[in-house]
Structure formats: structure tokens, C-alpha cells
């Protein structure tokens, strides 16, 4: 089951990242994972939070350009080559990875990573068939 990610458009100027995190923090929303992709002119902040719909509303009201995207949260086995195996698996199955990033906190021994792929449902089916743990929304938001 996919997880909701918040994406926020940011110009590359001072303080915007702080503005976003403060805005959601003020509403008691916690960040579970994040990444920033940027170019010379602009950036995209991606967030996994415990209350994505609320975060979406808050940021929109603050005047940010925001979108909700389906991503998958996959448990990466804590052993050498754990991530590489998953990437190979997806590559061989023809699942295109748009981008990925890691969770801030570890779940038990294993790491948790976010994957943005074209078709989350197919990717989830593939990974689960190989015995990998996919985190549900509930699980991720309650980490």
C-alpha cells in the first residue's frame, strides 16, 4: 500500500525550508522522512509526515505550491548489499525509480527507504513477492 508524500516547490532563497518546517511544526505535525532535490534556481522538498492531509492544507494556506504523491516505504535489510539487491530487483522488473531517499529513524535494525516509482502498485507486488516488508500508511505515520 502506497504512502502519501508531500512535495513543496521552493525557490532557492534563504529561510524557505525553515518556513515550511515551522509551519507544519506549529500544527503539531511530525516529519518522518525528507529529501531536497534542487537545481540552480529552485528546489523540491519532499516530506513524509504523520498527517499528510493536514500538512497539505497548512502549506497551501501558507501560500506554497504543494502536491500529494504516492510513494512506497520499503524496509531495507540490514546487511551489505541490502539496498543494491532491491535496486537490482526493480531494475530487472523494469520498474523505473524516479528518486529515492532514506528515513530519518531506523526501524529496529533495518533501514527504511522511500521510493518514488511510476506505478507503486506493481512495485509493491513485486517487492512483497520477494519477501520484502512494505510499510503501510498507518505504520509509517505512527513510527
Amino acid at each position, binding site marked *: 500500500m502506497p504512502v502519501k508524500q508531500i512535495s513543496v*516547490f521552493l525557490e532557492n532563497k534563504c529561510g524557505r525550508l525553515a518556513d515550511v518546517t515551522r509551519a507544519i511544526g506549529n500544527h503539531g505535525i511530525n516529519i518522518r522522512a525528507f529529501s531536497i*532535490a*534542487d*537545481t540552480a*534556481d529552485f528546489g523540491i522538498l519532499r516530506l513524509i509526515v504523520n498527517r499528510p492531509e493536514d500538512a497539505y492544507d497548512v502549506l497551501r494556506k501558507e501560500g506554497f*505550491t504543494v502536491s500529494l504523491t504516492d510513494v512506497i516505504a520499503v524496509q531495507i535489510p540490514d546487511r551489505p548489499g541490502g539496498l543494491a539487491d532491491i535496486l537490482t530487483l526493480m531494475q530487472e522488473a523494469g520498474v523505473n525509480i524516479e528518486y529515492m531517499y532514506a528515513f530519518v529513524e531506523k526501524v529496529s535494525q533495518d533501514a527504511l527507504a522511500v521510493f*518514488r516509482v511510476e506505478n507503486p502498485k506493481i512495485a509493491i507486488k513485486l517487492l512483497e513477492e520477494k519477501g520484502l516488508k512494505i510499510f503501510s500508511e498507518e505504520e509509517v505515520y505512527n513510527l
Partner: protein
Amino acid sequence: MTLYWNEKCECMPRSELRALQEERLRNTVSRVYYEVPFYRRALQERGLGPNDIQTLEDLVKLPFTTKNDLRDNYPYGLFAVPLSEVVRLHASSGTTGKPTVVGYTRQDLDVWAEVMARALTCCGATKQSMIHNAYGYGLFTGGLGVHYGAERIGASVIPVSGGHTKRQIMIMKDFGSTILTCTPSYALYLAEVMEEMGISKDDLKLKGGLFGAEPFSLKMRDQIERRLGLMALDIYGLSEIIGPGVAVECPVKDGLHIWEDHFLAEIIDPETGEQLPPGTYGELVITTLTKQALPLIRYRTRDITMIQPGDCPCGRTHQKIARFVGRTDDMLVIRGVNVFPSQIEEVLLRINQTEPHYLIIVERRGQLDELEVWVEVSEHVFTDAVRGLEHLEGQIRREIEEVLGISVKVKLVEPKTIERSEGKAKRVIDRRQL
């Protein structure tokens, strides 16, 4: 089905049309030379007599007429007939100072009714039509212009004029209006009020309409057509020349036929005054060919368009001017190229699918002008992948460059970055020290 009002004139072979224009141009020049002291002096200053203008090529020898010339000669200084011959006066609302006064002889009104009949026929009006004319009646030329054209056709006119929108909708419904004429913004307002009243376009019998006197974007056209269920055509005119009916779209909806047997059109570079070839944007300049009371020579409309090359599939032979891209007052000259904010806006509208917020910044680096366009990223176009936004940036850049023919830098910015003042944003910042 193609239907003309006056097939002989509207579809006249170009060579015949040209001969007619030259004959009428000679008459007009002679008339203003002998009847209007302002023009006699202007021609004499150039060493020209009435016989020096014989062909269309001689037109460039003639001086321009501007709106200021009309103001300076307020109210009747440019009239070419005694007031006893004038049967109607109209005036354009001057935003500053005195209005511009225009007069018509009986024959002028006849010509006006003729060109308006042609225009109304374009949008499907016939003797059977019920024409709902919501242009203002009065000093403004819109209301009476449509009115006389509609009567010329023999249609039934409802001279409803502006205002009382709910009553207008009731009238449209009860009287069975088939043709609507008003400004495009009023058409959209009618649609809005109709929806509030729970009246659907299917409750009305509207089939066609002429919408003008205001800038009219393609998006507005789509909305008017969809919400009112009619074919919406653009109509152009200005009171100095005659009023509405100078040019009109045909059902092909690709440019406005300018009635060249009465109005001689040129496109000039507004900076240099040089004539520009078809296909190049510039200022529309019109010489009246049949006006009696107020003939005007090379009148600078300050409206920016181009002559569209090529023939129209509708069969009318009169040249077409493109949809207007702006006023000379809005024009920017960047690296020698004329740029209008509306050209950029149209590209953004197409890509953004919503009202774009943008800012045009012109700077001079060394000897070179640089054009930068800031575009606020709306949710319609925002994607979570960098590639998507880079693609958007590139698409905007390429399409603007294609339209303008000069290079441009595009910058995506956050919403509300661009200052809004009283609902309307400031579109251009020119930082060049010219």
C-alpha cells in the same frame, strides 16, 4: 453553409478591389485637401498636392493622423462637410480631458449599416434572427452600430442596451433571442448570472454572437461558446474610423476580415513609421475610403496586429488582420524586436491551463538587452520530480522564443512572489536606462 451579406463586395477579386481602393483613395485625398485645412497644411508641408496620390504605393507619402490631432481640433475641426450635412454625432469617452467627437453624414450611416450587416451575417444573423443587442446605446458607437446593421438585414432587434442583467436573461429566454451582441466580459457575466438563476443555455435559442470593444482572449471565447451555446466571433472597430464593423471574424475563426472597400489597412513599425510586410506584427493604420463627414488619412489606431498572409477558406477576399496582441502603449522593444506582454501571457495561458501570474523583467547587460520571465508555479503544473519542472521551464522558454523570435530566460518562482496591486499584477519591470 457560407452566407455572405454582400457577396459581390465581400468576394470581389483582389485586382478589382485594388482598383476600387485607388479610385476611392484619390477621392478621399482630394476631399480632405480641399475641405479640411488641417490636411491641406499637412500635405502642403510635404510638398504634396491632391494629384500626387494615385496608387496604393503613394500612400506612404501621406502624413499620419493621431488621436491627438482629433483632440487638437475638438470638436469639429477635422470635419469635411458642413454641419448641416451631419446627421449623427458620437463621442468616445476620453479617459483624460476632452472626448473625441465623430460625425456621420447620411451616406456614412449607410456604409456603417452595410459593414455591420456583413459582420452580423458572419455570425449567422439573417432576416429571421432575433438580435439581442446588449451594447450600450448612446454616445458610444457600439449600440447603434449593431442596431442599424441588424435593421439593414431585416432581423428583429431587441435594443436592450447594458445593465439589468436578470431582466436581460428573462428577455433572451421569453423573446427567443438567437444572436447576442455585447462585450466579451458582459457575455461571461450573463453566463454567470444565468447559472445563478438556474437557467441553462438549452433554455435559450442563442446561435451566434459578436463580441468586441474589449480585448478578447481565446480562453474567453471558449468559455462564452461553451456556457452560452453559441458561435462567438470577434468584432473590431473604433469610433474614429466608423465604430464597430471595421473588421470581423468569419466562421473560420482565424483572423478578422477588414472591409477593404471602405477601410484601407497598413501595418507599420510604431517606432519608425515604416510599413511592414504581411505576417509581421505592428501598429494598424487605417485610411477611410468612403467616409464623408470625418475622413481620416493614415489614422494610427495604436492597436497591434498583423496582416495575415494567404486566402481565407470562407471565400471572402478582403485581407485578414490577426487577433490583437496589444496596444502600442504596452510595447517593449528588446534587441530591436517588438514584444508585447500579451504574447507571453498567451503562451503561459496555454501551458498553465489557468490564469498565469508572471513578471517580465528587461535588463541591459553591456550592450545587450536581456529578457527574463518569472512564472509562478501553480498546482496545475507542479510535479514532485525535478525533471518535470525542468521540462516545464524548457517548454515555456521554447514556446516564448518561438513566438517572439528572441532568446529568453525563464525562472520558476513560488506563488505570491509577484506583487499584485489592486487585483491586477504589474507585468513588466524595465530596468534599462533608455
